[in-house]
């Protein structure tokens, strides 16, 4: 016999550092894989309202995963294992979610089943762990639950608005995923396991593959390009744009920046696709690219908001192209990322954003100035991401630099060929847009004092040299 004091308090059963970290690791695995899956489905989704929400939720998943990962490491989880050895059954569960068709089944499955299951798992954790001993985890998990509940609420409201009955129509898919979830013992893995629904009519679909071409929201007419500097063959489009420029260079910049922002969605798509295509990179790669893709979606939304702010029927008046992503689609993912980096880096090195802000300031367009200013700050982060991760992927050496140059040059040539191949395509013609837009703009102009703005501006046609070929 030995002597001890009575227990100071009754402790929750089974909550120790080791099983707390294991539990949170399961949540991390799901958040991380869900983040990559939502990124891919964001690319596949053309419906604009859903697309924006998916980008937001994908980025939040990256923040959740990052906070969980940090906490897991604090809980003595080995650093060498934290990003490895995910539970295969959990990975299979998320992979099954990915098989839902975009956008209805996927949204029904994620927001009707997977996210509610995640919330249930987090709530299970909160109810089991000790509020003093494990306070840092509780802080994180409570915030994640608040995010997820908001995500579910917003997506359901959005579905009611733009696709009524989406959740009802996808009830069978959701039922199947619920059975898949029950078969792995829930996200926590602690529930009683049900048999796998191998014989379910919706089971056995082929592995999900991301789309290599994108469509725009069906409210917009199909068009390849969005501004005249992209396509040197569209002479009529350029002439029509020059009529807008002739109204005033400030007016042209207001409209140019809004259309340009709105079309930045292609950059979000390139980055989001990279998150899916590269499946074995360090965690920070995904964290950075998630931010990058979400930022570009925000920029696109900035443009949309500005265009709507003028009271315009945006789908009718504004070209929303898909040529840049689609021309890049067949390339290796690193080449797409290299070209995007090249474009963004060229833009900043030329001081284009600074000049654009000066012109927008001269137009006294505070909203557009603010949008451009925050866009500029984001883009500075993005070129840093591009520089860092392309060096990582290609090697931090002269050979790596040479390969980056080669990839970029090849990609520029591919884009130039795509432009040339589509020079007679009716979808490459922008004049019909700009002719109508000119009249709409002209009817809205008002006078402000002339500040004698003396700034030269030209769009950075990053592939100008290649286009000469």
């Amino acid at each position, binding site marked *: 016999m030995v002597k001890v004091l009575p227990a100071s308090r009754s402790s929750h059963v089974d909550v120790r550092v080791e099983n707390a970290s294991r539990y949170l690791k399961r949540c991390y695995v799901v958040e991380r894989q869900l983040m990559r899956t939502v990124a891919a489905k964001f690319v596949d989704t053309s419906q604009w309202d859903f697309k924006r929400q998916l980008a937001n939720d994908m980025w939040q998943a990256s923040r959740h995963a990052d906070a969980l990962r940090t906490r897991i490491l604090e809980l003595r989880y080995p650093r060498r294992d934290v990003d490895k050895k995910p539970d295969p059954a959990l990975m299979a569960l998320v992979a099954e979610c990915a098989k839902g068709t975009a956008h209805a089944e996927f949204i029904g499955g994620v927001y009707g089943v997977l996210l509610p299951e995640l919330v249930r798992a987090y709530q299970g954790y909160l109810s089991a762990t000790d509020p003093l001993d494990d306070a840092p985890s509780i802080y994180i998990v409570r915030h994640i639950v608040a995010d997820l509940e908001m995500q579910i609420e917003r997506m359901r409201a959005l579905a009611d608005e733009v696709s009524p009955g989406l959740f009802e129509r996808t009830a069978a898919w959701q039922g199947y995923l619920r059975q898949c979830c029950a078969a792995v013992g829930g996200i926590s893995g602690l529930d009683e396991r049900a048999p796998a629904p191998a014989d379910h009519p919706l089971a056995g679909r082929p592995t999900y593959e991301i789309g290599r071409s994108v469509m725009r929201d069906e409210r917009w007419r199909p068009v390849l390009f969005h501004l005249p500097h992209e396509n040197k063959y569209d002479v009529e489009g350029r002439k029509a744009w020059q009529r807008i420029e002739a109204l005033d260079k400030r007016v042209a910049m207001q409209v140019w920046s809004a259309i340009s922002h709105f079309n930045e969605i292609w950059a979000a798509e390139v980055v989001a696709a990279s998150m899916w295509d590269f499946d074995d990179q360090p965690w920070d790669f995904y964290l950075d690219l998630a931010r990058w893709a979400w930022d570009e979606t925000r920029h696109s939304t900035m443009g949309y908001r500005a265009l709507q702010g003028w009271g315009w029927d945006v789908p009718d008046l504004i070209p929303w192209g898909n040529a840049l992503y689609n021309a890049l689609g067949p390339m290796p993912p690193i080449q797409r990322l290299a070209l995007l980096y090249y474009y963004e880096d060229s833009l900043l090195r*030329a*001081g284009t954003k600074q000049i654009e802000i000066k012109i927008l300031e001269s137009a006294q367009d505070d909203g557009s100035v603010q949008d451009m200013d925050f866009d500029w700050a984001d883009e500075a982060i993005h070129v840093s991401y591009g520089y860092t991760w392309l060096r990582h992927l290609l090697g931090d050496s002269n050979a790596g630099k040479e390969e980056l140059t080669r990839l970029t040059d090849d990609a520029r040539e591919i884009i130039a060929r795509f432009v040339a191949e589509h020079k007679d395509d009716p979808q490459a013609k922008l004049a019909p847009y700009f002719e109508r837009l000119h009249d709409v703009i002209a009817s809205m102009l008002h006078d402000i004092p002339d500040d004698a703005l003396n700034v030269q501006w030209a769009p950075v046609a990053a592939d100008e040299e290649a286009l000469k070929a």
Partner: protein
Amino acid sequence: MGTGRGGRRSAEGVGIVPAYIASLAKTGAQFTVEEGETILDAAERAGILLAYSCRSGTCRSCLTRVLSGCAEHDPEYVSELNIDADELAANYRLLCSALACSDVTLEK
């Protein structure tokens, strides 16, 4: 001490704070760079537009070759800068994080 051409009285009123002249090779513009001031800040103070973005040495928008003279990165942040050893050896500097240590001519 600097060249004596651009020096100014220190805040305490004693001694002269060094200042150097930065010249842009392409435009011929010149401006004074005070001690402890980044070349980018000095250009802005002079109303000269140079491309930049992050102001932290990470985006590389302001990467520029120093054609003559001496410019060094702020030693306090040098480890956080996105610039390669071979770029440094070729006299490239990030103007947002570089201090003049003599009169300099920049490839701008």
